[in-house]
């Protein structure tokens, strides 16, 4: 039987990908961030997941405002790094797992999640940067991905966003679906986005480490409290784009109510974003 073996969460920023792809991760600006990633890489390496479910938001690569899905899920055999305006990242293709994807789709729809099913899909920095962070070599470089992947998208591009509580429940539903998968498959779930940041408007550059640290604490001690935060409050406390933190709650929902935080790293800032990372396993 399949099993969710751990959850890992991280911020994502295009420039983290660019730093890895251009080999400047040991520059003074980037070194503290990338050094902080190393224990997480070790943790993930030992886990050896067969499949990694990456819960992220598309930033306008696949999704335009003509058609915005609240929740999407990939069922493709392969996912390529897409062109966000500066060309695709020079990384290997990601291999999908259509069989598990369709199993998840059937089980999520049966649990009353109104998914949009993607059979063709390229992935942006919200997906590729976390993959490099957790599965890349010391500087993020990678020759071949050691895991199959399934992308799950959450709308954070246009309000209304799904509520934090709905995201947590999506995680619970993913957990049930994985538990019901008959193959012996070890699944890692990644929640990516946040932490506090605002890119748009005169408030751009807004960050609030106190809120981020509270969020990191409650991820372990009281995740249900986080599910009660309205999206407007996320925007106030974590910035207009900081509402991406709802993706962490999908990953959290897929775990037991009691988890152990294996590792945590927090760094201000990467570009305009407070960069947080954490690794969890079930208690």
């Amino acid at each position, binding site marked *: 039987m399949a099993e969710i073996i751990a959850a890992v969460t991280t911020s994502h920023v295009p420039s983290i990908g660019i730093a890895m792809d251009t080999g400047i991760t040991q520059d003074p600006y980037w070194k503290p961030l990338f050094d902080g990633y190393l224990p997480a890489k070790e943790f993930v390496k030992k886990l050896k997941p067969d499949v990694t479910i990456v819960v992220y938001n598309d930033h306008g690569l696949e999704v335009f405002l003509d058609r915005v899905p609240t929740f999407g899920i990939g069922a493709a055999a392969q996912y390529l790094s897409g*062109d966000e*305006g*500066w060309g695709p990242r020079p990384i290997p293709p990601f291999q999908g797992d259509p069989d598990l994807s369709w199993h998840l789709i059937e089980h999520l729809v049966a649990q009353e999640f109104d998914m949009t099913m993607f059979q063709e899909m390229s992935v942006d920095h919200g997906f590729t940067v976390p993959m490099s962070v957790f599965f890349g070599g010391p500087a993020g470089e990678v020759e071949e991905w050691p895991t199959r992947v399934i992308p799950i998208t959450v709308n954070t591009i*246009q*309000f209304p966003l799904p509520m934090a509580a709905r995201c947590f429940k999506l995680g619970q539903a993913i957990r049930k679906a994985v538990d019901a998968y008959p193959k012996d498959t070890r699944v890692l779930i990644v929640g990516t986005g946040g932490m506090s940041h605002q890119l748009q408007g*005169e408030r*751009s550059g807004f960050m609030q480490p106190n809120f981020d640290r509270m969020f990191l604490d409650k991820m372990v001690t009281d995740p249900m409290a986080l599910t009660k935060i*309205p999206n407007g409050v996320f925007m106030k406390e974590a910035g207009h784009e900081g509402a991406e933190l709802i993706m962490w709650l999908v990953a959290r929902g897929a775990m037991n109510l009691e988890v152990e935080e294996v590792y945590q790293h927090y760094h201000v800032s990467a570009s*305009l974003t407070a960069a947080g990372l954490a690794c969890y396993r079930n208690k």
Partner: protein
Amino acid sequence: MSSSNEENGSTPSITERIEEDKRLARSLEGTYLFDGLRSQKNYPLNKMCMSLTKPENREAFAADEAAYCDRFGLSEESKKLVLERDWIGMIRSGGNIYYVFKLASINHVSMQHVGAQQNSMTLEEFRAKLNAHRDQ
């Protein structure tokens, strides 16, 4: 006639919750809640920016920026904002940062630069503001 199939009590609470959330989000200074209203506000600008994810479109844009904007039906005002790379102007006019940032990317203008201009700061001032958070 107006009573719902389920318990009626939750209707006002959902409405109140939504209205309170929007009121809060709209009250944040220097923030432009990207909701349905704003999504309709400058749809052509966002659509033009979205198109820049294709190399052939970036070439066409570079060849004649104004003509390219016209193809997407941008207003004269929006076209001016694009030609002048007026980031905060684009956001105010209804631009979504994720699409607008593609316009910055094609010239390798960083998000920090876009953020500085939105704050009417130099890049150095803006970086100092970002780094100040390290003390928190």
